[in-house]
């Protein structure tokens, strides 16, 4: 699904953030990436979605070298993001936020509105919350909308950067359970950057990013 081959990256060409990272991610599996702050976890996610491009090395998604693709196209058709601070349009309702993402990825889809509603319901956003502007929703509810927005696109890869970092423990757990459950249900490849031990134990694989290298891979698969 995703093959990262010997990728190096630095923001300023002086201090290198990633050095020769090579790793593969497959469909239907969940991954967690952890590591000290500033180790380059977010940077790695940004590279996979074409937000930034590597200095050297290659990133392949579904047999495409993404160096040859427009970043927008990658994010429209392959990779969806879930952010720590949700990054929703605060003035739009939950439904409208998700609907916009769906329209961008699948503009000609029939019955898309229905699909959006069902997905949001599945994530526990009921009918009255659907029509509320998201700025009036709680953090947990907002992140559920964020997850729905990522799933609705039909993109095979979900990249979540500390998705529960702003939530309290109980809510974080709920949201994470949902995310992992739906990832499996929709057969996505989900990569979660996290500091939480608890989340790490729930993903199929766990990777440590330290000093610019992916050093250790734990497996939780039985």
């Amino acid at each position, binding site marked *: 699904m995703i093959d990262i081959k010997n990728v190096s990256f630095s923001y300023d060409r002086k201090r290198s953030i990633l050095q020769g990272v090579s790793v593969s991610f497959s469909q239907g599996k969940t991954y967690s990436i952890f590591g000290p702050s500033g180790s380059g976890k977010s940077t790695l996610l940004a590279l996979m979605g074409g937000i930034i491009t590597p200095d050297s090395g290659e990133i392949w998604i579904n047999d495409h070298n993404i160096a040859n693709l427009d970043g*927008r196209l990658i*994010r429209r058709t392959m990779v969806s993001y879930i952010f720590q601070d949700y990054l929703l*349009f605060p003035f739009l309702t939950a439904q409208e936020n998700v609907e916009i993402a769906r329209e961008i990825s699948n503009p000609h889809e029939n019955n898309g509105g229905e699909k959006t509603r069902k997905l949001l319901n599945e994530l526990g956003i009921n009918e009255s919350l659907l029509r509320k502007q998201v700025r009036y929703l709680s953090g947990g509810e907002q992140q559920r909308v964020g997850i729905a927005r990522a799933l609705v696109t039909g993109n095979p890869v979900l990249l979540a950067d500390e998705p529960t970092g702003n939530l309290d423990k109980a809510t974080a757990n709920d949201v994470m359970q949902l995310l992992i459950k739906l990832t499996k249900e929709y057969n996505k490849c989900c990569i979660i950057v996290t500091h939480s031990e608890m989340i790490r134990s729930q993903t199929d694989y766990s990777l440590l990013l330290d000093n610019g290298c992916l050093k250790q891979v734990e497996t939780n698969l039985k």
Partner: protein
Amino acid sequence: MIFRRTILFIERKHRETVILTVLLFLLFSFFFSGVVMYQSTESYRDKALAEIGATLQISYLPELDESTLDGVDQNILSRVQSIPHVLGVDVAPPSLSGSCIPLGLKTVKTHSGFNPEQQPSPIYTDEEARMESDCVDLIGCSAIPLRNQFRNNMSVISDGSFPTNDNPGVLISRYFAELNSLRINDVISLKYLYSDASAMASEVKIVGIYDTTLKFEILEENDMGVAVYKASPYNAVFTDFDTASKILDRDNTVYNFKVYVDSPKNLDAVQEAVQKLPMEWDKYKIYNETLSFYNEYASQIDTVFSNSLRLIILTSTVGIILFMVVYSIWNNQRIRDIGIFEVLGESYIHILMIYVFETLILSFIAAVLSVPTSYFLIQFISQTNSPEFVSSNIINIITPYDTGEYDINPVYAVSIDIKALLLLLIFVFMIVGITGVALMFLLKKSKLQEMLKAGEES
């Protein structure tokens, strides 16, 4: 789809929408008021200058008396006539006109504005006023076609021709002719109102009938009462110099004359040439009428003209800057929103379109509202008695029909024409263009990672 999304954004960001629309609305209202006033005064100024024309008045010195003068020689007049750039010479003004009773005929009493019956006429006794109201104003003149209303085509001969010394007779208005069923070559009797009781009426032939677009409006400050009817352009009777002096029983010696010149540019040259002619220059003086009229009236229009230009420039620069400042209040939010669109993979063009449509729609709403508002704004400006703008003087600058001192017509009309609307449209597109270019700059320059962080501070 993009359009629908724009509408959604406008609807949801209602606070921003309302504030920006109100701002644009104020900006457009002032801008459009300026444009309309500018254009109205511009055309008004052109009209005023055309009305003033280019004339020199040669008159004897005010301390002298006609009895001490020999009058101007016919030979001199023809030499003036042949000076280059001279259109014609009018030998009558200012004295060869007067009220005449058209025996057995009615005068036209149609007008707009105030009812003269209800206005006091301190300068006439009631009896005199009633007599004058049944009179026509006989105007003797040797250059009728050069008078304002004919020169500016506000009055046009529709039947017959202009009276001249070789074609003596009278020129009457179509209103007057129809009211009395008169036709060309009919003969009417005119009697000078203030002639001796024993004097005979003069019989004159109608040689011409003119149509006029002049409007006769009686103003509130009319001090003639019903006598004002005599001043109606419909009751004006033009005649040649000789016929006038016969009817008015005046000596046909020329004491004063007016020189019509083709353009104000040539006035100096003509004045110089006239001054070289062998006249009694110790008794006569040349007045540059154009210049004095200009100083009296047209310079006021110029003030309005330049003030409205100032209004346009001021409002557009202050307005655009203010708009950009207010627009940028939401810049962080906007940058973040654009970042979200980019993360979702929306295309550059679509993102740009959403924001351009947004300002376009707000601007159009503001522009549509600003047009009727400008109308009231102009009224307000003109009614707050600020003489720099539409002063009351402007209303009375030009009397389309030379009636002497009193004010008749025309009303300063503010007209909203296609050109003004077009300018407003250009201004709207300018605003949209500026925000569009600013946004394009932003989109090209910013890094997505930074854009996503933009919202954090706000």
